[in-house]
């Protein structure tokens, strides 16, 4: 099948369409299931490429070596250029401070964006969960032997949330649990991973984010990092998060 709009789908998934073009394409996607499916597949390939592309990481020794060599270069460079050095250093500091803030924000958005993608691709799957049960005493034991940690699940009776099941999830080369809950017609994913230094940098505790109609909340407890992600209202996401915290 070929559609005149499909030529714009790459630019759409790359967030390169703006203004009228974006509005028109989104209107078309609402009316064209073929283009919508095509856009989703392109997005899946983009996300898979993103996942496999982050494949190589430098050793801590090498990172240290670069830091040292740059520092050595810096000392030599400063020795003969006091005045321009001061100007350059001021410029560098001026640039690095907003860069650090931007970098931190970008890290948070990237992490939550990746988890939102995991959530969406789970919902797109014909078999979104590997263990299908509304019973926490069935879902939790299913993860035994599959994860290097354990977690608690709260009682969901008398709450608007219903447990649907769970599956293994991999995020940045680490295994974790993905639990699927339902509130009304909305499905929410709860991701649980071992907390790491890079994840800890996301925030010190409670944090609620909202972007592209997805809400997410993250916190750490007992060495585990929790993420709650879904298109439910921020109040719904927060409600489920609070419920999960009662399970400790």
């Amino acid at each position, binding site marked *: *099948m070929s559609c005149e709009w*499909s030529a714009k789908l790459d630019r759409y998934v790359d967030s390169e369409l703006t203004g009228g073009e974006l509005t028109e394409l989104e209107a078309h996607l609402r009316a064209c299931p073929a283009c919508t499916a095509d856009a989703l597949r392109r997005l899946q390939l983009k996300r*898979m490429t993103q996942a*496999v592309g*982050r*494949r*190589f990481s430098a050793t801590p020794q*090498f*990172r240290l070596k*670069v830091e040292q060599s740059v520092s050595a270069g810096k000392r030599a460079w400063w020795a003969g250029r006091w005045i321009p050095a001061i100007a350059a250093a001021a410029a560098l500091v001026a640039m690095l401070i907003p860069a650090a803030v931007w970098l931190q924000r970008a890290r948070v958005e990237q992490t939550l964006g990746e988890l939102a993608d995991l959530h969406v691709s789970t919902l797109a799957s014909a078999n979104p969960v590997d263990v299908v049960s509304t019973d926490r005493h069935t879902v939790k034991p299913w993860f035994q032997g599959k994860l290097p940690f354990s977690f608690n699940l709260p009682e969901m009776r008398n709450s608007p949330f219903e447990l649907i099941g769970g599956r293994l999830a991999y995020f940045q080369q680490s295994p974790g649990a993905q639990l699927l809950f339902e509130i009304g017609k909305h499905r929410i994913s709860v991701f649980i991973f071992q907390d790491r230094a890079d994840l800890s940098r996301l925030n010190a505790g409670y944090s609620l984010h909202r972007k592209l109609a997805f809400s997410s909340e993250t916190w750490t407890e007992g060495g585990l990092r929790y993420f709650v992600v879904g298109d439910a209202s921020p109040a719904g996401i927060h409600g489920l998060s609070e419920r999960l915290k009662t399970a400790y």
Partner: protein
Amino acid sequence: MFASLYNFAHWLTQDREEAEDLVQETYLKAFKGFTSFQQGTNLRAWMFRILRNTFLTSRTGLRVKMTDPLDLDEDTEAMPATGETPETLLLARADQQAVQDALERLPAPYREAILLCDMEEMSYHEIAETLGVPMGTVMSRLSRARKSMRERLAATVRGVTK
């Protein structure tokens, strides 16, 4: 940015030691040439451009230029998208290893465009700035790279080795 630069360097060189040399040289060049960096312009694109230009003058980079000529898509017209085809339908069944293989087999100019776009989430403008090519060429390379990956993944899923 260090992690991103290293990862990109390793993809370019396909070798840990060469990647380390490349990143180290990039940082030193960036530091020495910092005064040439124009504030208000894109620091990330500037760093990636230094890294890529350094790579292209290395022995491996020169070899890559010989085997994957950078002018293979001087026709800057983006390829028409194929819409819903058996290839795209099969894509959903491809696994990460297959995607990795498809990425590795792309010609270097296509692969670097895809990595900067999908992995580094650079805009087309930033990619054009980094690679020193027009935006149309960026779109063309991305389009061709994705088409090639879709076809290879579909072949893999079908169990056919192209």
